[in-house]
């Protein structure tokens, strides 16, 4: 199982990696409220799909199993807006890896 705080740490590592590779222009310091999708996010569509892919790779390596992250299954995502925060994603990761 990945704890919520570990998940947030992985999200931070992934965003830092994207920044180091040049895919993210600005460095992002992750907090619960950091937007990953929607208003205020630093991730364009290309960066976002790369972010999810790299985050899955990290999770797979950590848990030694095949994980699938589906944004549409994050708790609280109701389809009426396209938005996702780091905190909500960390909560979801903790749930799907338990």
């Amino acid at each position: 199982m990945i704890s919520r705080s570990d998940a947030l740490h992985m999200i931070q590592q992934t965003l830092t990696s994207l920044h180091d590779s040049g895919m993210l222009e600005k460095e992002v310091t992750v907090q619960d409220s950091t937007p990953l999708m929607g208003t205020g996010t630093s991730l364009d569509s290309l960066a976002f799909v790369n972010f999810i892919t790299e985050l899955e790779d990290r999770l797979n390596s950590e848990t030694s199993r095949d994980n699938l992250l589906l944004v549409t299954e994050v708790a609280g995502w109701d389809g009426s807006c396209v938005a996702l925060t780091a905190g909500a994603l960390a909560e979801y990761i903790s749930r799907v890896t338990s």
Partner: protein
Amino acid sequence: MEHGYRQASGPWVIETVVTGGEWQENCYIVQCLATGEQAVIDPGDDAERLIGLVDRTQGPLRQILLTHGHHDHVSGAEVLCRRYGLRCLLHPSDARILRQAPNMALRFGGKRMDPVQSYSFLDKSGVIPFAGREIAVIPTPGHTPGGVCFDFGSCAFPGDTILYRRAGRADLPGGDEALLAASIEGIMERLGDDTVLFGGHGRPWTVGEAKAWWCSQRDVALGSH
């Protein structure tokens, strides 16, 4: 019901249906003139509309084929699979991209799509039986790891590997520009000049036209994304 554009190609009738909104992807309904059997290639969206077109033509739907797993080419697949009791076919190397398609649909298109669950992998034989013939499957990694081109003889469906006067993009997860170039060249080596390429977006053109363009524009095309 809005019809697609139908044209004959050898033993087939090809109906081009532009689906979706922002991406305007091509879905193709291929019907065998002799048997009436149908195949759907890349049902990107508008599943109910596609069902209406397939049912109107009255031949049995035998295959649902995916050139690759990106959301704009698979969003309608699950609904079609359930409606006709079929499993769509794709290359195993695109399984992950197919599973991630709902994320891409949301982020790129702002749309919610049903995950595609009714799928099987293309086997290693390199052919698909359809309407008493064998459809060749040409692996074309580069746009995605498991991209393929379906070769129907008189026509072929390369997905987003090569589009009209444009190479596919290689900057999405799993993309590889060198592999993409090799795949484009592989398509041109393997298919005859008169074969019509029906790409994932845009208008069709012949392999001969594509070769002439590729020879003069290769470096520009690969650097354009």
